[in-house]
């Protein structure tokens, strides 16, 4: 918007003031993340020291070793008199493997089912307007309301604490995003293209697979990354539908954080840093589409 130059003013003083506010906002946004990063490299005696250490002069990888290497965790717990034993005992590898399996599988099903449903909604008007809102309602329900009966249901079906159970839950609760996001991409593809393909003898399904799908490939990929972020970050289902057999990264983080017992700041921070890293990378990869995703395609940018 070139005309805004005249709107926001050309006075140098006003400009300096505005840039200062922007820099302040950047600092506030980054500060907690900086603290997480910085703490993850602090040796044990600097974790909770006062006055706080901003950047450790003696950086160490010990915290990351405690998270990932069972031996380092054991020797650390022993050195602390065994009181922290139960918290650092399991290594986080299991959590990363489980999270990867569950998030990937759930993302796959969510996006495939979501794409098919979105196509059906856009081109066949299946269920009319009603369908789209049905998916949206799922997003509005507080998951905890469904979790309570789900725990009872899963225990009957032998699904509690299994991959299948969590994948099922994640698939269902990310479906609204898949459907609405892919729908907004399909709507951008002119129907005439499929019509043309069908005149040349393709069936509707062929036209969808060979004409529309390649055109929205980028959008579907962005949707997949977005849904993966949601799955990876999910906490409530992972907490309630598992009982030790399966651990996701978010549950592992919560295991280290506990208001009542010993403070494991360094270990918490190390786990926090590693577990949030893939999500940040994916987030920036789909930065253009984040808004579309989080607003169900209602704001397209």
């Amino acid at each position, binding site marked *: 918007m070139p005309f805004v*130059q005249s709107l926001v003013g050309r006075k140098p003083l006003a400009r300096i003031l505005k840039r200062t506010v922007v820099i302040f906002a*950047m600092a506030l946004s980054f500060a907690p993340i900086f603290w997480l990063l910085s*703490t993850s490299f602090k040796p044990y005696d600097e974790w909770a020291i006062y006055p706080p250490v901003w950047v450790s002069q003696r950086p160490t990888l010990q915290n990351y070793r405690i998270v990932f290497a069972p031996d380092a965790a054991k020797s650390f717990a022993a050195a602390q008199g065994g009181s922290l034993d139960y918290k650092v005992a399991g290594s986080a590898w299991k959590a990363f493997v489980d999270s990867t399996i569950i998030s990937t599988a759930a993302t796959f099903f969510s996006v495939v089912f979501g794409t098919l449903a979105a196509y059906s909604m856009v081109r066949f008007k299946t269920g009319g307007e009603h369908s789209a809102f049905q998916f949206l309602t799922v997003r509005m329900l*507080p998951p905890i309301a469904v979790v309570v009966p789900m725990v009872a249901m899963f225990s009957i079906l032998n699904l509690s604490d299994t991959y299948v159970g969590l994948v099922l839950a994640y698939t269902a609760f990310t479906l609204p995003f898949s459907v609405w996001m892919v729908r907004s991409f399909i709507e951008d593809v002119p129907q005439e293209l499929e019509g043309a393909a069908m005149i040349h003898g393709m069936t509707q399904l062929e036209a969808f697979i060979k004409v529309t799908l390649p055109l929205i490939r980028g959008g579907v990929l962005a949707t997949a990354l977005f849904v993966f972020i949601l799955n990876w970050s999910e906490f*409530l289902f992972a907490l309630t539908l598992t009982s030790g057999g399966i651990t996701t990264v978010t549950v592992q983080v919560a295991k280290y954080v506990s208001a009542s017992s010993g403070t494991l700041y360094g270990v918490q921070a190390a786990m926090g840093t590693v577990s949030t890293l893939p999500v940040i990378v994916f987030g920036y990869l789909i930065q253009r589409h984040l*808004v579309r995703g989080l*607003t169900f395609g209602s*704001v397209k940018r």
Partner: protein
Amino acid sequence: MAKTQNDGLLKAPGPSPLGPGFSLGFALMAPAQLTLLAVVLLPSLMILWLGVTAWQPTAGIPWYKAEFIWFWNFYDLYFDSRFTSAVLRTLLFVAVCVLSELLIALCLAVLFLDEWPWRKLAVSVIILPMMIVPVDAANAFFMLFSARGPINYIIAEVLGREFAYAWLADPQWALLPIMLAEIWQWTPLMFLLMLAGLMNLPENQVRAAVALGASPSRIFVKIMLPLLSPVILIALIIRSIETFKIFDPVYILTRGGPGSATESISMFMYNGAFVFFRIGYIAAAALLVLVLVVSICLPLARVLRR
């Protein structure tokens, strides 16, 4: 004209290879619907039954044989101050967090209307919080707000005296760190929405006002804000719905404590079901929440239809 022709073409798919009665539209819809049926609809139906029972899994009775107690759960909920204050507290969360997010985001977005060399970098840094796993963000705030943590250190430096306040242990103020964590994490989304909205405003009216010599603040209030209101409305609705479900930061920072001073609806239900094992009672609460959400949100959601 061309559009109508193609519409007709697509709506007459010809004989299906799978025989008559087979509809491609329904077949494509089926997997998604079946998943929702299994994971959302069945449990929702189950609450209808559990909500009128006194079922506790610890008692060793299967859920379908639970004791039927009519509507006593709802009666108890009505007089349970822990539940009613959790509802009010959640509404407070929504009001404070969403409005703060909107206000900060709007002010910030206005600063991003013009171009400057490191503008892209600034946007990337400012939206960093929304990329973080919510549990990890809460974890960071847990550390920042510890009694001997960096926040208290800065306050002590500013005040020039000792300051070792245990934020999360005080029933009066423990809400603040939770709200700040939520606001910190989701203001960036609001910011992106406002920025997108401002950049897409129709230029003509603003141009005309500029040409007529209106002051920038007047242009903003009288022209840009009204034009922006649909985007603001969508942003408010989406963030309110999400904040209503608030759980992760509450769980990580306080678990609803001290006592029940910071319990949101989700936290109340989690504690009731997974700490006290009063499933029947919580199912009744879930039912109330479902009715509340559907009756409030569904009309709001129609706005999203554009």
